[in-house]
């Protein structure tokens, strides 16, 4: 019953990937994701793979951590692969229509295993292609969170958003919301855990019975949790009002300055990635 939180796994380090400005890292990640989905063949995908491997080697993050990121998506990967590799065709084998191919090699369209159920060699390749794409997507984003403290990450995100204030986007409020969410997610998780233990001590069972029974079992956890969250929200609102928060007219203590090296590395990698995506 571990609460999986998709961030906060920062691994301290001094590598160039660690030191790169968070905004640049976000931009490069965005460009990489674009490239990953824009490329339409194995050449492009393998180049993406090579780029990831490069970034990974530079970051000096232990391999097992990167692999760990795959654990939650393992089922998705297996399913993606099997769905592509196997045929469950109602049509006689050989007549099953093939979706657009990612490879041009001539391969047998299907190897029957049992009735209409069989392995589809072009599908195997396509399955691998999709699996690799998901693996790269997850690996790069986890590389981002492994090398960037979550605070820098949100600061970066907010600072990238700031120009939007001109279009009446409430960037200050969004920034505050981010910050509060970061503060309160662990507090809420801890509180939920405490209430669960307390209700278990009163004989509550959370993992037995049918779906309705299980859902009902959560009522004694959810109600106290909500009561507490409303109380916290009320007190937090008072604390913010006391300190004159209105979301407008704020000044900032921290001025983030970006070095030329950051700009150069970030800009260049983003450019390469976008070109890659467009050309291949």
């Amino acid at each position, binding site marked *: *019953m*571990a*609460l*999986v*939180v998709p961030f906060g*796994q920062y*691994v*301290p380090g001094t590598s160039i990937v660690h030191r790169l400005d968070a905004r640049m890292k976000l931009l490069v990640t965005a460009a990489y994701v674009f490239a990953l989905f824009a490329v339409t063949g194995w050449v492009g995908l393998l180049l993406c793979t090579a780029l990831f491997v490069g970034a990974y080697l530079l970051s000096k993050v*232990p391999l097992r951590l990167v692999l*760990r990121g795959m654990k939650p998506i393992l089922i998705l990967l297996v399913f993606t692969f099997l769905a592509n590799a196997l045929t469950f065709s109602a049509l006689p084998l050989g007549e099953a229509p093939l979706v657009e191919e990612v490879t041009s090699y001539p391969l047998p369209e299907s190897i029957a295993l049992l009735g209409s159920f069989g392995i589809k060699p072009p599908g195997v390749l396509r399955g691998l292609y999709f699996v690799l794409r998901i693996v790269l997507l997850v690996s790069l984003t986890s590389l981002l969170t492994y090398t960037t403290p*979550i*605070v820098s990450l*949100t600061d970066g995100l907010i600072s990238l958003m700031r120009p939007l204030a001109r279009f009446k986007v409430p960037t200050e409020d969004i920034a*505050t919301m981010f*910050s509060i969410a*970061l*503060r309160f997610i*662990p*507090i809420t*998780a*801890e509180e939920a*855990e*405490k*209430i*669960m*233990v*307390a*209700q*278990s*001590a*009163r*004989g*509550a*069972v*959370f*993992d*037995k019975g049918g779906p309705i029974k299980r859902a009902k079992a959560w009522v*004694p*956890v959810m*109600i*106290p949790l909500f009561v*507490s969250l409303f109380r*916290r929200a009320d*007190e*937090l609102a*008072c*604390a913010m*009002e*006391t*300190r*004159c*928060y*209105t979301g407008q*007219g*704020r*000044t*900032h*203590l*921290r*001025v983030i300055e970006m070095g030329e090296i950051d700009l150069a590395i970030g800009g260049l990698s983003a450019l390469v990635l976008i070109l890659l995506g467009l050309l291949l």
Partner: protein
Amino acid sequence: MLSFAQVSYRYHGVTDPALTDVTFTVAPGEHVVLLGSNGSGKSTLARLANGLLLPEEGTVSVEGMSTSDRATIRTVRSQVGVIAQDPDNQIVSTTVLDEIAFGPENLGLERDEIITRTTSALEWLGLTGYEERDPSTLSGGEKQRLIIASILAMNPTYLVLDEPTSMLDGAGRAEVRNAINSLHAGGHGILHITHELSFARDADRVLVLQGGRLVFGGTPAELLNNEELLVSFGLKVLPQRVSALPHTINDRLLAALRPVTAPKRWRERGGVFPSLYLNNVSFSYGGSATAGGAGKKRRKKSGGVAESELGGDFRGDFGGDVAGELGFEFEPGAAGAAERVVLKGVNLNIAPGSYTLITGNSGSGKSTLLRILAGLLEPTSGTATFSSGDKVFPSAVGIVFQHPESQLFAQTVEDEIAFGPDNLGLLPSRDVRGTVVREALDAVGLDPRVFFHRSPFSLSGGEMRRVAIASILAMRPTFLLLDEPTAGLDAAGRAFIHTFIEQLVQATAGVVVVSHDVAEFSQRAQAHLLLKDGQLWRL
């Protein structure tokens, strides 16, 4: 001058006013302590002080500016800083520095000015060097000092502190008390709102709030030396009055403690219950294979308790590895969290009818020890058993967690109390259910006729705590473990807890109290143990 003039306030939809005709002033540089029991209207008064609430009648003003005037409200709020009791609900930012800068940033100050103010606030509260720390890694006392610093950075003339120490342990209390006194020495006007008499000694002047009215104003000596006054204000409960509190008859309590779930052979021995033993119990968090194995076993047994086994004494003491303890996806080696040994070779014997006090600092592993005693957590090594040889099982050992009222969820007090026994299958019929609930209510001194059908959420804080205790008692445990049972309670609430425990002991229940408040319990308990460095020491 911070001034309340004939101030009354009533919450929407409530008949009784929270405050009635309250008039007083706090001068710049003056230290005023305002005392009041739970529910006397203290927090309402704090929120009125800087316009978080607006008076229904009368005026609250600061240097002549009314809090009801929207035009000057920002000035009023930067003049009067209000600090509430739970620091966790007041921290907005993810670093200490940003938290302190939050107020000045909101005021739209220049960057240089923000730097000057944050630096001075950090220094004043002894937080220099903490700038880039994540507030969630601070101790309770440090967090509350952080809040005070962040208010101080607004350059207020007055500080209003609403029970700032009630969530803190002894060390935290001392830190905050020193902070308040040094702020007063630095020329700030202080209004310290509390139910703890001991703070009155620090004050220039003491006010007492009772039932929403100011009933006393004078010097600390005038109040503290007048026992009669203290008793009539509900700030002190005399020992003889403790036993005279209208509740519980012993045989009722005995009935409530008859362990229905106990193994048959216990009952066959004519109601002589076994002792509770901890045998060479060790416990550690993280890394090791044994701990993981224990985790799996535990989950099976206690029905889906989260993988975490957070000690939970106070959040701060777990430092950076709190996420790991919460069962977040977490790589032990990754963030440098090594295996953390909490208990090493603990032996303990809790006899029926005994009263044991366990004290220890925040983070000493008190809560872990309690969870093992309650059978909610498997020790990494060693055993928790009854002297009959049975393994400890949760229904025989009741556990009342810290602030148990925060677990209430049902629509009526009846359902709330019946929840535990229902889950254990102890309530075969409506009649039995009614009886069990009534007995449990009796045992905590609440009249079943009044409380049976009420919503737990309509009760006062003290009543909620009693219902929460009754909900554990209704499972008829042989042993009762209480974690900080008096936390946040006023004199009357504390007196009830002490009487209640005495009666449990007389009714041959084995009672264990875990608390950081040595003075509160050490005279009453039969044995006093200190948990330190993972081991128990007899005091």
